[in-house]
């Protein structure tokens, strides 16, 4: 769980949803077992250990990167086909994030690498890894302590746009900085 400089705990927003899920799940136990699907593994929501008061008068952000008015809001950079080379136009964006990470102890980021669907899945998994790694190296060179950064490649498995055109592909060749 990440506490950002605004002192708001990120998972607090998830609390009502989890309570609802628990309630529904409990209500489900007597329901007929009509699902033909086996029990599936799903992402595990982080169970909240602390509650925080929800403010309703203004938007609550998990961090400045969720505020459209903040320069950290831009968290995605895009790549050309079959390359992990960072385009010069994204250097300022990465510098902004590097400065934030370098000056806020306790904030960590995962660099998520993605590709378009062209080419083979495992090659793309490797390419996504190289894209995330390029960003990681650049941010470390910009002064971010290495232990604040991790990489995760999804290859072509998580497209931002599921289409089969260049319009979709250019949105899918990306690294997302996830706080």
């Amino acid at each position, binding site marked *: 769980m990440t506490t950002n400089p605004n002192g708001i705990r990120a998972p607090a927003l998830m609390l009502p949803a989890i309570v609802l*899920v*628990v309630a*529904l*799940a*409990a209500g*489900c*136990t007597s*329901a007929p077992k*009509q*699902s*033909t*699907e*086996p*029990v*599936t*593994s*799903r*992402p*595990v*929501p982080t169970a909240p250990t602390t509650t925080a008061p929800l403010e309703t008068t203004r938007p609550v952000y998990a961090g400045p990167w969720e505020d459209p008015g903040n320069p950290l809001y831009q968290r995605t950079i895009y790549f050309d086909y*079959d390359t992990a080379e960072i385009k010069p136009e994204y250097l300022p964006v990465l510098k902004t994030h590097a400065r934030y990470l370098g000056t806020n102890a306790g904030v960590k980021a995962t660099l998520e690498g993605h590709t378009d*669907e*062209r*080419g*083979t*899945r*495992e*090659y793309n*998994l*490797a*390419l*996504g*890894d*190289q894209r995330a*790694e390029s960003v990681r190296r650049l941010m470390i060179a910009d002064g971010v302590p290495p232990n604040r950064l*991790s*990489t*995760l*490649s*999804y*290859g072509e*498995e*998580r497209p931002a746009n*599921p289409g*089969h055109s260049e319009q979709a592909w250019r949105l899918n060749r990306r690294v997302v900085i996830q706080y």
Partner: protein
Amino acid sequence: MPRHQRRTSILMAFAVVLFGFGLGFGAGPVQARLNIEVTGGVEAAQPIAVVPFGVSDGLIPPVDIAAVISADLARTGRFRAMPTRDMLDMPARHEDVDLRDWTLLGMNNLVIGRVEPDGSGYRVSFILYDAFRGDQLANSTLISTKAGMRNTAHRISDIIYQKLTGQRGVAATRIAYVTATGQGEGQTVTLRVADADGYNPQTIVSSGEPIMSPAWSPDGRRVAYVSFENKRAAIYVQELASGRRELVASHPGINGSPAFSPDGRKLAMTLSKDGNPDIYVLDLTSRELVRLTDHFAIDTEPSWSPDGQQIIFTSDRGGSPQIYRIGSGGGPAQRISSEGDYNARASYSPDGRSIVLVTRVSGRFRIGVLDLDRGFTRVLSNGSLDESPSFAPNGSMVIYATIHGGRGVLAAASIDGGGNQRLSQDSGEVREPAWSPFIK
């Protein structure tokens, strides 16, 4: 899946997680099966008549054995099965057969048979004739359980295929494949194993996160795969019969491309734990991990030669993805693909004389077979995003993933160009097929 069922299964999954149980995997209930369509290439096929099998009075076999055999033979692309409605006679015993009737109808071969009760199961007998010479090419009896009747039919198909072609049949083999329904957060990805004709699908593992790269052990009892279920790629090896599985690789970075050695003792894989994607070999018994390549480029998609001496892999060390070969114990890597600017995901044919790969032709990704002796690639498919080719264990066909009607489906093509088929689900995407070895 209807919406209420989906919601129920999602909630059940949350409930399982919240109550501290593990993951859902192992043999599941009946699933949507793959529909197979033969899409071409039957003109050059040999005509054969498989007469509906005779049954003892009052017996209702669970499976139309002759129909299963006819479909199995037709799928190979080498046979054209006579429709039942064109048959003038339906003999079930040798004494009732007049082969001249069948030669007049243009049939080279005839299969008759019958099903009789045997305890709680069945006794299935059949005879394969050469209609012109009058010979019996096969005459045998198989004992079958009720549940095993489709498999018994596949075994008969394989006996017939072997007698007529000299090559071992693959009707009784299986395929592993990945299905996906929904998008993004609502996506369900499932690894399944089904019979080669698409029937009897079983769920191996299912997740809201990506599952990739199924690979069979050489004995056909285990499948290795990549799962992101813990929010990052990890490699598991799962025993099909018990559902028991083992986490074999979850290093920092990617853990991908598992490939069993031909003796089943080692698993080649791609790891990026040391900075960039390289090929490693894990000894599944001693857990010793050996790094095979060390290059700043991408090295991935390892595949073993049938004798276990060589590993081929994809590398972009020369500027574009190409296929390289290295000794399975290490040594220098040698480039083996020469045509084209994108060659990837290669694997050996069962006889080791060719490799099947993904090759880019005029900007389209297609399946090619590279003859290692002659050095040229023959393109087998005509899609634009074809991938994940896998040889049938007899080397006669290649199954691969393609897009049809905007949707991911599987296709199979004969190596000799004789037959093609398409395998799809009623809904969702199907991808990453892996053809099993021969099942003993």
